């Protein structure tokens, strides 16, 4: 599937905006992303959020990614 990177994640991956990856869950996706771009390890370790079809998942690594889903990798957020 095509995974889009945004914010500083894109620059940490050398300016790449989107990347073709495999994975059936959010966790698998992040593992394959880290394998492809070791420079993203710190960012992933610090925490990222994954938007699957518009819904943002911060922590649920077992969240399934349906085929054809729109996947967007965002920096992890905090609130007040």
């Amino acid at each position: 599937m095509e995974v889009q990177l945004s914010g500083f994640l894109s620059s940490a991956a050398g300016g790449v905006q989107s990347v073709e990856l495999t994975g059936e869950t959010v966790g698998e996706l992040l593992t394959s992303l880290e394998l492809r771009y070791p420079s993203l390890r710190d960012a992933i370790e610090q925490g990222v959020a994954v938007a699957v079809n518009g819904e943002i998942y911060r922590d649920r690594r077992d969240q399934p990614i349906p085929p054809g889903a729109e996947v967007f990798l965002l920096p992890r957020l905090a609130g007040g």
Partner: protein
Amino acid sequence: MPYETAYTNQGFNLVGSRVNRPDGIDKVTGRAKYGADVNAAGQLVAKVLRSPHAHALIKKIDTSKAAKLPGVKAIVTGDDFPDHTGGNRSMMDILENCMARGRALYDGHAVAAVAAIDGETADKALKLIKVTYKKLPHVTDVDAAMAEGAPIIHDWVRTAGVQPAPTTASNVAQRSEFGHGDVEAGFAQADIVVEKTFKTEQTHQGYIEPHACLAQLGPDGSGELWVTTQGHFTFRNVCSTLLGLDVAKLKVTSSEIGGGFGGKTHVWTEPVALQLSRKANRPVKLVMTRDEVFRASGPTSSTSIDVKIGAKKNGRITAATAELRYQSGAFPGMWAMFGAMTSFACYDLKNVKSVGYDVLVNRPKVAAYRAPSAPMAAFGVESVMDMLAAELGMDAVEFRIKNAAKKGTKASYGPIYGPIGIGPTLQAVKDHPHMKRRLGKNQGRGMACGFWFNFGGQTCTDLNIGVDGSVNLTVGTVDVGGSRASLALIAAEELGIDYDQVRVTIGDTNSLGHNDTTEGSRGTFSSGMATIFAARNAIEVLKQRAAATWDIPVDQVVWEAGEARAKGKQNSNLPPLTLKEIAAKSPRTGGPIAGHNEVVADGAGVSFASHLVDVEVDPETGSTRVLRYTVIQDAGKAIHPDYVEGQFQGGAAQGIGWALNEEYIYGDDGCLQNPGFLDYRIPVCSDLPFIDTQILEIPNPNHPYGVRGVGETSIVPPLAAIGNAVSNAVGVRMNHVPMSPPRILKAIEDAAG
């Protein structure tokens, strides 16, 4: 066990009703215990010595005289905090912020602390500590800190998010970019382009309860911490990391919390109190003064923002850009990134780009403040939206409706929206009676929209049924604004019992699994979700007990209206068993009945609001009076409408204060000049009108009841809404918040030439 988190559109008996909060009596009688309200036998009182300089080398700290003062039991400086962070830079930043390590980075930065038998002795001891400083050049303004030749706050900071990676130090800690499309091409298609620069000053959450804790840490590394916090589990983890303790050995109890708004999501003095306690081997109470709260907790960023939006004559936006510069205090943050993500989130844009710069200055480490970073971005964007509407000759509301994001819109920060509420809130503005109020002389009306993400996160709850059928619900999110009532409603709804049969307790860190901090408007959303599941688990047990009592298979038992009913003709002779009856028999049917749940509550559902305000400006003094204020926001589902309205009103009031009067004022010496409630002017009762609210309910598809977080979005629109109203009242565009009387008067006169 997997849980069905999807919205089911069930009918409700209790949810949505305005019941009295269960902790009400404790709070109106003075019985409720807040951070500073408990004492321990043999307790010491701690006070912190703080830097009077904006930036200085700490050459020497001589504590010998203070140590000799009778009654002084422990003194700590940076040297008493060995590095246990294992190279984790952000943890080290927190530690260094709690206690300076060789360099004072802002006015108010802690440099030493004392624990003594009473406050008077501790105060005397502070005066006896001799610190030798060497002053260093400082910078407190965000634009000045980015300029060439500015004093560098940290020589190890390299701007992240820039290609190729820089090799020299900078005050810009991070650059982050969001957006899609081709903005240059978009602007080329525009008939009208409006561009403007904005500034917002630093504000504080202004919770009335200062930070306070009672810490006890023994030489064996076991301890307890009673503290006013939004996240006792997070405090436990952070304090354990910073002090090299086992997480399980530190029990943290959250006191009643006297306001947080994001400011109590981070540790400030707690590790210091624990370390003093360890050194003295006695309990230590540490309560910040108001002056310390302003100087040395975590206010929000001051900012400098450029916004450019272009549109066709038909009112369609063709392109939009923003460059947002946010100061994060003396340590790196991610605040500009949030500004960049939220700035255009309300609109459906083909070509959009926002770039955020997180900038270091000699000010306290910035913390979250209610929808952190979004209000400033909205001030810029929503002001330009009004300016553009005026240039186009369009009504400001119509212009927004024409460009509003909807289901399927690709958000400016990336993902594609599900069902969202921006369009409906705008329509509600259009239809609101407030719009028909006739404006008088020197009066103006303004509106603005706002967005916040909302979060869920790790959550764990416990539900225990007593032998009389009453229910204890223990949750790990703190009750910042009435969530006990909402959670009791949910538990009672699920179990089919009366609301007042449920008692909600905020569990300490030793009584529940980890719960994330109560931030991101997640309290009722995520603990509500975990409560639903815990109750449903308990119902499974209740059904089993009923089945055992009746001696029928459990699949023939259903739970309806608070009782177990046996299904099927063969069971028609079995009268239903109420929760109360099953509970009474529980000692003999298998013991206590409980439901438990741990969940990562994701999918919190974004939230939108539109605000409408009328103001009157005195053209001779520049003074602004808010005459009428209306908040319209999507709550998904309002569990307890009173407390949803309360969040809308409270956020609006904070935004009004920010818009008109609140600001950190720094002198040329880099020191904060107004660290008190007299000159840091939060709105008083006579400054405000009643704040009308309208709750919209567009269900969140990812919550069984459709709940969205409601706590934060309400602070996003007020800056811009009031800016637009003032502009309409006096005909000048305000681009500097707060719009204090001198700034407004000056703008009026500059415009008059």
